[in-house]
């Protein structure tokens, strides 16, 4: 009797889940495993602020419950980190010292918080809000925070600072409009956003970046380039996200900023595909690699990767441009055309 295929998906976000669903719909017999280093089931990342402030509960945050995976005969392994991939032997090496073999692999590992190179040396001071665990941690901190500092930005950072304001925290927002993510802001748009935030009683500093960060007892002291000193009892960083591919480097899978894949989302190994925030996709028209953002893009890529893994030849196409509304300012974006570090 032939052995069943074992499709392994690393990543339990929108891309990974869509891929798993497509695989199950089209192959009832295969073993399907999703690996995630998070302990919490698939959730809406953009709703984490609402969860932290108590607007929604844990269950409402979830996209899919654990039992739904069981019902589809998809094995969800939570809290299990992949440390190494050996594409030649088709083996994954997990942090808890287990070898996992696959016949085909989809990398949907998503992204990790980005830290500006100028602030890298202060990385340990920052509290990030990258995943459920971070949010749960911040939620438990919120009650005791009085004057937080938020360095941003990105769209989630703006939502976060507004949430802090609603909770009557005396928050200070450092807006890095030149490094905004996922799109650039010009000074005009940045000023408009600043004014809008200040109307909400959020002290916003724009165009005066952080020079140094130091600790005084439990507090953080920020000195800006212009010599201003800001003190806060918590320090958050929201500088967008970068592909989460550190563990893939050295495996033989081609990477640059993300995992390099062709228009079929296939990596340089024929049984490995990548999709979602971690994939750096070759665009036939532009003849260059691109990274996409957003929930819808991830779902679309997860679907295409799964069909191609099953033998089809679908070419990924970029979603049409999306209009973001940031504090009343309309910004158009879809494909991220500048890979920021």
């Amino acid at each position: 009797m032939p052995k069943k295929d074992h499709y392994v998906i690393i990543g339990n976000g929108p891309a990974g889940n869509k891929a798993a669903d497509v695989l199950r719909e089209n192959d009832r017999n295969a073993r399907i495993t999703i690996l995630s280093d998070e302990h919490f089931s698939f959730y809406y990342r953009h709703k984490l602020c609402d969860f932290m402030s108590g607007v929604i509960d844990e269950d409402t945050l979830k996209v899919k419950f654990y039992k739904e995976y069981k019902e589809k005969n998809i094995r969800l392994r939570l809290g299990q980190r992949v440390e190494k991939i050996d594409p030649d032997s088709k083996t994954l090496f997990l942090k808890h010292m287990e070898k996992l073999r696959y016949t085909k692999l989809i990398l949907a590992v998503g992204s990790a918080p980005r830290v500006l190179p100028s602030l890298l040396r202060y990385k340990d001071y920052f509290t990030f809000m990258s995943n459920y665990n971070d949010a749960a941690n911040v939620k438990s901190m919120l009650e005791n925070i009085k004057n937080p500092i938020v360095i941003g930005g990105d769209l989630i950072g703006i939502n976060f600072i507004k949430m802090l304001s609603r909770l009557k925290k005396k928050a200070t927002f450092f807006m890095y409009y030149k490094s905004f993510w996922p799109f650039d802001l010009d000074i005009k748009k940045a000023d408009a956003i600043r004014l809008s935030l200040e109307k909400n009683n959020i002290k916003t500093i724009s165009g005066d970046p952080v020079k140094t960060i130091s600790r005084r007892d439990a507090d953080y002291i920020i000195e800006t380039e212009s010599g201003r000193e800001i003190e806060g009892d918590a320090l958050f960083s929201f500088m967008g996200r970068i592909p989460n591919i550190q563990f893939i480097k050295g495996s033989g899978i081609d990477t640059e900023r993300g995992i390099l894949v062709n228009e079929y989302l296939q990596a340089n190994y024929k049984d490995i595909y990548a999709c979602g925030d971690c994939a750096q996709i070759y665009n036939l028209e532009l003849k260059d690699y691109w990274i996409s953002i957003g929930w819808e893009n991830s779902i679309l890529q997860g679907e295409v990767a799964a069909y191609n893994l099953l033998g089809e030849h679908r070419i990924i196409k970029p979603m049409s441009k999306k209009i973001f509304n940031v504090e009343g300012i309309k910004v158009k974006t879809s494909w991220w055309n500048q890979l920021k570090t």
Partner: protein
Amino acid sequence: MARKIDLVIEICGSAGEGTISAGEILSRFMSSQGFEIMSFDTYPSEIRGFGKCVAHSRISNQKIFSPGKNADVLVALNDVHSISQLPFLKETGILIFDNKPLRYHEEDKSIAGWVEPGIISYGIPLHELAQRAAGSSRGRNMVALGAIASLFGINAKAFEESIIKRYSKKSRIVIDSNVNSFIEGYKWAKENITKINGISFESPGIKPSRKKREIINGNEAVARAAIDSGIHLFAGYPITPATKIMEILSKELPGRGGVVIQTEDEISAIGNVIGAGFAGKRAMTATSGPGFSLMTELGNLAIMAEVPAVIVNSQRGGPSTGLPTKTEQSDLNIAVKGGSGDSYRIVLAPTTVEECYECTCLALYLAEKYQTLVVLLLDFFLSNSIRNIDSPKKPAIKLLDANKAPGNRDLKSYKRYKITGTGISPRAIPGTPGGMFVSTGLEHSEEGLPRYDSETHEKMTEKRYMKIQKALKEIPKPKRSGCKKNIKVGVLAWGSTAGSAREAVAEAEKCGIRAAFMSPLSLSPLPVDEITEFANECEILLVPELNSSGQFADLIAPYVYKKIEKLNMVTGLPMPSEDILSKIKEIAE
């Protein structure tokens, strides 16, 4: 009022990894800190090998009666074995595992790969820390105990001292290796694990007991009681789970003028006991299912010849050699009815470790006074379960010398088997002037001479039956708890299952079910009046027991005049109170 602490910790590993030792050390230490303990171990039957071992300890600052079904904490010393134990971990339990084993596990052989959401898992480099502490990974069990102490707020210094005490008879190297491994585990967990669970043994609010407390298991209690009751001879053939009784007595008895004989088999063991009993010395043996079967015929001789003899039968899974290291209550039929003819005997079934002590004292007394066979029915769980109990009260003087010796008038024309109003005849110890008699397994006259006539057989059968019935008055009455009237579900349990039944009834009452519990100590003679009365008071009668057919339910059936609901299990594990509670709820609807 102190917060309730009630946790089950399981340590799972392979034979030879110190799993059972670690569990025992944990149980005994927590006991010494005043916690109530209920523990049991499961391990493979093979003496050598790598079978699965589980040390299960329920630890509470409240009174507990059952071992608890699911674990709050599972410590995996061996991943492959522990994976099969994972279903017994609560959905929100804690897993402690080795996250740096010597080599990668193959697919699905790592327990961390099977953890489901809700379970908190703490990866600890058990091998690495043990190597660092003692140059060998053998101390992983101690590293795990150190981590437990750190994670759950256990006094590390006191724990360390208890480990030193535990290994005090070993070499310095052994002591240091164990202690250093413990410290290494404690420190590592303290420095590296951010605790995210609410489990803590800190501030248990335990009031120091005014009475002296002891940490003891069922076998130890039996051995202690035998010594305190003045036995002169113990004869036995090693068999799990009763061997420990012989081990203890072989150390203790010779120094007190007694004798321990390891015989060539169980038939010889009971023969020795009957011989000593005939000679007027208190004697007993301890065995388990297969050994008990072998003793049946000579047990009948003790009944027929009216010689005191005590057999401790610690039940395990059967039939035949069966499941040597699993618990069961399936020897009831053979204990009560085993043997040819109408072989009336006394059978006592203790329900707790305290009762193991009390019943052993009582058994030796009853055997001597009623000149018959007394069987003490323990089981694997009760034999090995460690409890923290008030120091047992030594037997009253009355219990220490119960032989009805013949008076001068009796000796003038001595009748060893004289028919009396109580069924008990004056018993001359061999060597008593004028007290010569014939003793035989054949039916006999009052003088002991073989007789085959119907009149003698009827008289003697009646005599042997009557004295056993009279003994009932000397055995504590069945215990009761729960509702006293308008009982919807009455639970009648025996032996080690009684604790779980009692706890289940208390929980059922909290759920608004009118439930009651009763447990008889004497299974032969049966306390028929109490059982009938209890059954009449209950709308539904439930009998939970660890055998397949419902042996106790069938034994009492002629006296209860109603259908008995049976709950039978042969899982090899103690019956969980949770399962009894579920059954109560189901039949109460």
